[in-house]
Every structure is written in C-alpha cells, then in structure tokens.
C-alpha cells in the first residue's frame, strides 16, 4: 500500500562540505561558505548597516540565523566576515559542532525556501532530506547527529517541525519559517555523485563506480559496487585544494625573499578565473602556473596510489570497476591528470578513457554541485518508493545562488 503521507514531501539534497555547503531542490542549488560566527551586538550591527555600502542585499549574502540554544544571532556563510571568531562546520572531514551544523541545515533550507518565494512559489512546507555526511563520521556519529536534530525540532501532535528565524543583516528584515520534517536520509558524501551518474549518465543501470570527490580541505574516495558503498575502502583524506594553494603561497613566500606572504585565499580566488599571476609587494609579479601544475600532479599522484591499492582489493573480491568518476571543487584542476593516470594504468585508448573516466561535465553540472543534486535524487527516489511509483530520474539545474558578492559597486 502506498504511504500517501509522502505525497506532499519536497525532496531536498544537501551536504556540509569542508569549504562550501550546498543544498538542492529540483532545478535550484544554493551554496554558501561552511562557516559560522557570532553576530555583532545590536548597536554594532546597527552601525554596520548604516556604513554598509554594498548593493548586494540578498539573503544568502547577509544571513543571520537565530540560535535558540544560545539565544543569540549567528552569522552564516559570507556574513560571518563580520564575526570576531568563526567556526567551520567540518574540519578534516569531521563535523565540528552539532549545534553549528544544525544551523547550517537551517540556513540551507531557509535560503532554498526564500529563493522559491522570489520565484513566485510557495515556501517549503514539508521536506525529506538526502544528506551527505563525511565518510569519517561513521554510522554512530550519523545516528548521534540525527538524535541531536530530533531534539531541536518542535513537536506538534505526531509531527516534527523545524522552526527557522532568519535575519537579513543588510536590510534588517526578519522572517520566520516552519518546515515539517518527514525524514532525513544520511549517506556518505560521495554517494550523492553516484546517484547523479546512475540517474542521468547510466540510464538507471547499475555500473560499479569508483567516486573520488576532491574538495577544499579533503578528498574522499568511495567505491560503489553493485549499488552499495564499499565502506571498508571509503575514506576521507585531509588533503585538498587548500593544500595546493597553501603550498603555492609558501613557495611564493620563500622565492620572493620572504618579503610578503600572499594569503592562500587570494590564490584560491584566482583559480576559477584561470589567472595564474599574483603581485608580490616589493618583488614584482609572480607566475605560479608551473607550481600549480606540480602541486596538482602531486595531489593526483596521492589519489591514484590509493585508487590502485583499492583496485587490488576490489579485484580480489572478483569485482571490476566500470567507471571512475571525479567530482568536487578540485576536479576542475585535477580531473584531466586523473583521467590520464587511469588511462595509463589500464593502457586504454583515449576513446575508452573518455568513456570510462567521467566527471560533472558528463552531467552538465558543475563538479561542486554533483553531490547535492544526487542527494536530492536519493530523497526523490525514497519518496517515490513510499508512494509505490517509478522515480523521475530527470534533473535540469537552472539556477545556482551563492554567497559570493554580486553587483560589486562602491
């Protein structure tokens, strides 16, 4: 018998990445920095509002969420630039603080709902969430995190609601939202990517897929064999694009006669724009293209060694890998090197390597958002199963909102 209580559940996908948190609903994605900080005092905040000359007044850029466990406003994502002290949701692949991570979920759902309203849709009312957790968290931590979430929900009869009180610090507007939680499904982070490939690239056929998710602070490996994540071989390694940019910063510092240390963040910002030169005060312009290439090669070599080692274990079980997938923010820098190394390992032709080594490009989705899309599909599939229906595997990402500054004007 279909469970009709799932008929009005909206599927949501989400993950708290080491650098960015991403949430997906249907064709919309929101992404903000995985960082939280305490709000300013009322008087300081009022002064900041008066002096703020940014024309970007979007909620996602200026978001504060009321933390009822501490009875104070907390700044989330880009807004935490004004906080004295900031905390990251995760560090080295581990959730740092459940209360902070809970606010991350509140922020994600609020921003998705806000985007709906801005597109003349009703706010979110009842959700089922597919949620990616760091591999190192493990099932016990996942259960504990779930119990924490449960303890923070408001019970009304047999139903549980998430209350969100949010403030747009730039405009001073405060909004409250009440969302019913139907379920939350916790899965290892890179499994979302597998779901995306399964539904779109693989045409709902089960191919053994080895997923590598290269993030800002960690890279994750997750072999999925016969639709099941191989937990024994999955791992998150505390090495990512941050390692690459930090090393570049250090090399520039040393090569420039230690005059000035370029912040890692400045190098990071240049990468998406394809800029590989940075001005070092007192030392001139420094071209770091070659260093970047070497650092990426080093990171890729570490990844490939782990992959080769896992292939031995997988093969001993009589299984083979059909596809190798690389996703995450670092994929844009590492993917081609990764493909080349897999190709050389198997001595494949270019044609076969192009077919068997895949990335977000094969889905038409930015590498960074493939996981969150997949978790949305996972939640959608579970809702369809409860309703005893076929799942709709289609998705088309038409809008992405981030907390990066827009309409920059002084």
């Amino acid at each position: 018998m279909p469970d009709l209580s799932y008929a009005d559940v909206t599927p949501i996908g989400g993950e708290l990445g080491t650098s960015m948190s991403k949430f997906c609903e249907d064709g919309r994605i929101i992404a903000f920095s995985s960082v939280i900080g305490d709000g300013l005092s009322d008087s300081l905040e009022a002064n900041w509002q008066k002096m703020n000359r940014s024309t970007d007044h979007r909620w996602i850029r200026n978001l504060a969420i009321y933390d009822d466990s501490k009875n104070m406003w907390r700044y989330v994502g880009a807004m935490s630039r004004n906080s004295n002290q900031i905390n990251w949701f995760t560090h080295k692949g581990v959730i740092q603080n459940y209360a902070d991570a809970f606010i991350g979920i509140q922020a994600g759902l609020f921003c998705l709902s806000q985007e709906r309203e801005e597109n003349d849709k009703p706010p979110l009312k009842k959700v089922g969430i597919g949620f990616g957790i760091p591999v190192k968290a493990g099932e016990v931590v996942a259960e504990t995190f779930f119990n924490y979430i449960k303890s923070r929900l408001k019970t009304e009869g047999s139903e549980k609601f998430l209350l969100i009180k949010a403030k747009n610090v730039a405009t001073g507007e405060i909004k409250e939202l009440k969302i019913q939680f139907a379920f939350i499904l916790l899965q290892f982070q890179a499994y979302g990517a597998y779901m995306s490939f399964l539904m779109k690239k693989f045409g709902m056929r089960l191919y053994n897929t080895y997923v590598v998710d290269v993030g800002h602070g960690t890279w994750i490996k997750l072999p999925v064999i016969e639709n099941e994540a191989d937990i024994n071989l999955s791992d998150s390694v505390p090495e990512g694009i941050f390692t690459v940019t930090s090393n570049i910063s250090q090399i520039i510092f040393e090569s420039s006669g230690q005059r000035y240390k370029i912040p890692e963040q400045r190098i990071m910002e240049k990468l998406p724009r394809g800029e590989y030169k940075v001005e070092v005060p007192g030392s001139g312009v420094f071209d770091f293209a070659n260093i970047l290439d070497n650092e990426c090669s080093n990171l890729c070599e570490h990844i490939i060694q782990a992959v080769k080692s896992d292939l031995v274990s997988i093969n001993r079980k009589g299984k083979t890998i059909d596809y190798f997938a690389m996703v995450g923010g670092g994929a844009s820098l590492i993917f081609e090197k990764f493909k080349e190394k897999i190709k050389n390992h198997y001595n494949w032709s270019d044609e076969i390597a192009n077919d068997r080594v895949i990335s977000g490009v094969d889905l038409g989705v930015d590498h960074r958002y493939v996981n969150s899309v997949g978790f949305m599909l996972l939640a959608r599939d579970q809702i369809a199963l409860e309703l005893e229906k076929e799942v709709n595997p289609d998705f088309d990402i038409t809008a992405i909102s981030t907390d990066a500054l827009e309409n920059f004007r002084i």
Partner: protein
Amino acid sequence: MTKNQNHAHHDKKIETGSQLFTDAETIAIIDAQCEEHKTSRAKFIAVVTRLFLDFSYIAKTVGKDVFSFRDEMIKAIVRSKGNSDTGEIIEKIGREESAAGSGDGEPKASELRGIKEKFSGMARELSELRAAFVELKNALGGVSEDQSGRRNGDRKKDRRHQAEDDPAKDKKHEAITVDELAQEFKNSVPPSYKDKRKKLHKLKF
C-alpha cells in the same frame, strides 16, 4: 510420446532446420569446414552460432556492429604485419559478401537478427563468465588487477617500442590476452536499478 516418436520428431526438426541452407555454395563451405574440423553439420552450426554471438557481444561492447568490428580487427592485424593495404582487403571482402548475399538461399539479415535476439541470454551468460573468470584467476594465482594492469601495460609498451624501432622486424602477430581484453570492457548488460530499488533506512521524525 514414445522414444521412437521423439527421434522422428527430432529428425524432422533437423530436416526443417536444414531448409535454411538451400544455397549450394554455403552448404559446400559448411561441408568443407566439417571435413576439415572432423565434425558434424549440427555441431559446426552450433559452434558458428555461438561464435557469432560472442563476437556480437564483443563488438557491442566496443560500440560497433559485428561487421565493422571485424573490419577493425582486420585493419589491426594487417597493420601489425606492416601491410598498409587494409582498405583494399576490406573492400575485397565486402565485394565477396555482396556477391554471396545476392544468392536466394542466403539467410537474410532479419533472420540473423532473429537468431541474435533468441540467444541474447547467452550474452548475459558471457558477462557472468567474465566475472567468474576474474574470480577464478585471482583464486588461483592471486594476481591483482593492479599488477596485471601494469604488466600488460609494460608488455604493450614494449611491443610498441619494438614496433617503433623497426616495424619491418615486427611481423609476427601477437594474440591479445584475456586480461587485456577484459580490462577494456565494462559490464555490457548491467542490472537495472529499477529492479534493485529498495527503501533505505530513513530517519523518520
């Protein structure tokens, strides 16, 4: 039905089956092959059918139809022997095929497709055999994909190196190993997710 009746029924089936091959030239080829391999017509046709399915499977896996696949193989073999007239050879085979195809008794393409569909289950068996083979290989020798991958890679590189040094000397055609072949394949008949969907452990509120 008695045993004798069964025999009669079986003979009739064979007779009916033989009606497929009214073309004298094809029958002559079959008989010559039977003579060469010391086997019966029935056995020969069974083996040929099986081989056709095997090659169809391999061709499908690399994204080609069986005839294009054969052409690619010919090109590769001819290249490995240092002969560049592959186009002419393939054209010649094509001409022979067209001439043979004009005979009235030749099985039509639609019939071949029918046979192929009828035995498509055998392609699935092959896929399972491949997995079983890998398992068996590991059980016997503990040879890892990693190690074999590298060894095969080295072998191939060596061969290429040799060919680059002196193509004329590298006249001998080397057979591709099962390892090399298997590594180029992905599962051609993967199971459907629709059959494996299940309700996961959802944390309900």
